[in-house]
């Protein structure tokens, strides 16, 4: 045993009061800031400010702060945890007492996190995740780093590794560290269309407000006199829209760049015999272990630009983890050899025997007809507008056709006695999904009436995280795949986690 004793119920570090206080204050402020600001605004505009002297204001603020402090202290005093006979126990609650017990064998992951406040007072929080449900929150907000590490080791000790890899791995040596330059390149080469679309939708909804605002600034008249155009209204229209698009592109570019840098700051990966240890983050530092038995699917993602720069992303999924948590399982900025080595660790000898089976060409035709149909529907209002706008369709059609062709080109599937590998992608992105057959939960054969007339079907493979689809293959092939997967799962009877 280590120097720390976890057998008797203990409280967290006394600094926990500060963390609980800070976090609850932050949450309340975040939730009520709009209402609060509205109240203040109303109060000031009503002209009753004279009643509220600065002493009164300070007293109210102090009262609220004191209340929060008392709650924080009470919560701290009523929060105890211990580990006993392979179970982790947690008692909490001021009025509503709660006792949580988790079998260590059911623990999926243990996170060590550090937000800005915790970084300042030098403590870490430790949270435990089970596959059961995503609502149960087991989080100890303040522990010293060494104590958290010791508790983590104790909790994860029981989870036995299932895959054995060669003894060449040196424990605790840093395997991969993403430099600022790499992260910068990752951020720059992101598929900016996605964030662009999001911001674009937002701007459209407040389009008229912006227009009014810009008109108020009288920018257009200033620019208009530069160009000295007679058709001022058309000029205004074009200039205004071009500016908006340019601003949007720059904004979305910087947003994803900053997000990438903050989330993955100091990304470090360590290889362990049972899996990986990932730590990253600037404002919220996080440290987590991924063990092979807990991983459900693995996806390798890259796009055209990233491929040219030699950048790959590896994302793992675990059972029942929520979307936000799932982001933490991403490793960005990996080089080609590194990603191959990591995949080799979790899926030994998978890629060298990979044979790409192609799905039916119907995949391409379906994509084409669906997007052309949507385009035609979108074109309907243009019938009443100027004909010149119809030319906008030309680049869109080219994009749609190219996208469909590449969607077919990049699609493949592979299946052997251990793995299912499915490749997919569109014009820009390329994804490769890896799944161990023993992680399969259920298999579905889907057939639409369009597929039926062509004798095709899709196989959907359900796992404890996201489903994997082998799209549009011959019905006989689909049935064979389904039968084979069911046979493997039922005859081998291996654990899925």
């Amino acid at each position: 045993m280590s120097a720390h004793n976890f057998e008797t119920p203990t409280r967290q570090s006394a600094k926990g009061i500060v963390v609980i206080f800070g976090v609850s204050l932050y949450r309340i402020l975040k939730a009520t800031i709009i209402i609060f600001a509205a109240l203040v605004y109303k109060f000031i505009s009503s002209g009753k400010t004279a009643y509220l002297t600065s002493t009164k204001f300070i007293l109210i603020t102090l009262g609220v702060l004191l209340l929060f402090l008392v709650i924080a202290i009470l919560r701290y005093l009523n929060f105890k945890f211990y580990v006993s006979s392979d179970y982790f126990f947690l008692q909490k609650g001021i009025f509503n007492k709660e006792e949580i017990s988790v079998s260590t064998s059911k623990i999926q992951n243990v996170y060590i996190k550090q937000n800005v406040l915790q970084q300042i007072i030098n403590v870490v929080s430790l949270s435990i995740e089970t596959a059961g449900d995503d609502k149960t929150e087991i989080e100890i907000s303040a522990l010293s780093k060494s104590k958290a590490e010791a508790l983590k080791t104790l909790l994860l000790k029981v989870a036995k590794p299932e895959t054995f890899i060669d003894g060449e791995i040196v424990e605790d040596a840093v395997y991969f560290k993403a430099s600022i330059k790499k992260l910068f390149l990752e951020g720059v080469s992101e598929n900016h269309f996605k964030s662009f679309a999001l911001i674009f939708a937002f701007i459209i909804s407040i389009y008229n407000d912006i227009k009014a605002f810009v008109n108020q600034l009288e920018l257009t008249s200033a620019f208009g006199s530069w160009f000295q155009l007679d058709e001022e209204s058309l000029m205004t229209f074009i200039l205004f829209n071009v500016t908006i698009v340019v601003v949007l592109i720059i904004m979305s570019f910087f947003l994803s760049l900053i997000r990438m840098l903050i989330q993955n700051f100091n990304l470090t990966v360590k290889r362990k015999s049972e899996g990986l240890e990932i730590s990253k983050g600037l404002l919220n530092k996080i440290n987590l272990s991924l063990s092979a038995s807990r991983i459900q699917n693995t996806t390798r993602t890259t796009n055209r630009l990233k491929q040219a720069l030699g950048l790959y992303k590896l994302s793992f999924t675990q059972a029942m983890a929520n979307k936000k948590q799932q982001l933490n399982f991403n490793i960005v900025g990996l080089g080609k050899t590194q990603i191959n080595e990591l995949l080799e660790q979790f899926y030994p000898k998978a890629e060298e025997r990979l044979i790409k089976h192609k799905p039916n060409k119907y995949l391409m035709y379906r994509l084409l007809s669906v997007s052309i149909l949507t385009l035609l529907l979108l074109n309907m209002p243009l019938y009443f507008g100027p004909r010149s706008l119809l030319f906008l369709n030309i680049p869109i059609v080219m994009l749609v056709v190219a996208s469909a062709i590449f969607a077919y080109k990049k699609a493949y599937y592979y299946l052997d006695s251990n793995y299912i590998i499915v490749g997919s992608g569109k014009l820009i992105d390329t994804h490769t999904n890896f799944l161990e057959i023993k992680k399969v939960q259920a298999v579905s054969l889907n057939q639409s009436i369009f597929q039926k007339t062509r004798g095709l079907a899709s196989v959907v493979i359900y796992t404890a995280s996201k489903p994997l689809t082998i799209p549009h293959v011959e019905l006989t092939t689909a049935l064979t795949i389904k039968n084979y997967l069911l046979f493997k799962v039922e005859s081998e009877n291996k654990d899925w986690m």
Partner: protein
Amino acid sequence: MTLFSNTQIEITELPKSEDLNLHLISPKYFRIILFNTTLLHTVVIASFLTFSLLVDEPEVKTAFWYFLVVACVLCAISVLFYAIGFKKRKYAMREKDITYSHGYLLNKTVTLPYNRIQHIEIARSFLARKLGLSTLKIYSAGQSGGDLAIKGLPVDVAETQYAFLTKIINERS
């Protein structure tokens, strides 16, 4: 990976899920579908009717009649598709897995191995109790949607299957 032998399996000799003799669910369940669909459309029509009565505008009154026709046509179409698709609602149990197939426009045949079942459940709505029907729900792990819900099983069949599955789950561990 040398712990088990890995001799080649003849693909043609695998147990075939397509040869399964699938059972139809109880035809009484169609009454529940019919009731639910008409109820849904009636509620929508009724709320629009109250709206048009409250607002005293002739345009709204005319719009209501168009709306009524559209809603009735939609109701008829969905009942028609339910009627065609009803014969597609089939299930079967094998030694090691359970299969449920449904859907006309998009037919899904989901097979869930018994060794992946997390828990099972029998649900009975008010109408189902009156008609002697049950819904058998079988859950696998995770949230990806590989769960089965066989609707419209006769009570005794559902109970027998529930008992059978419970026995299997208990013997498993």
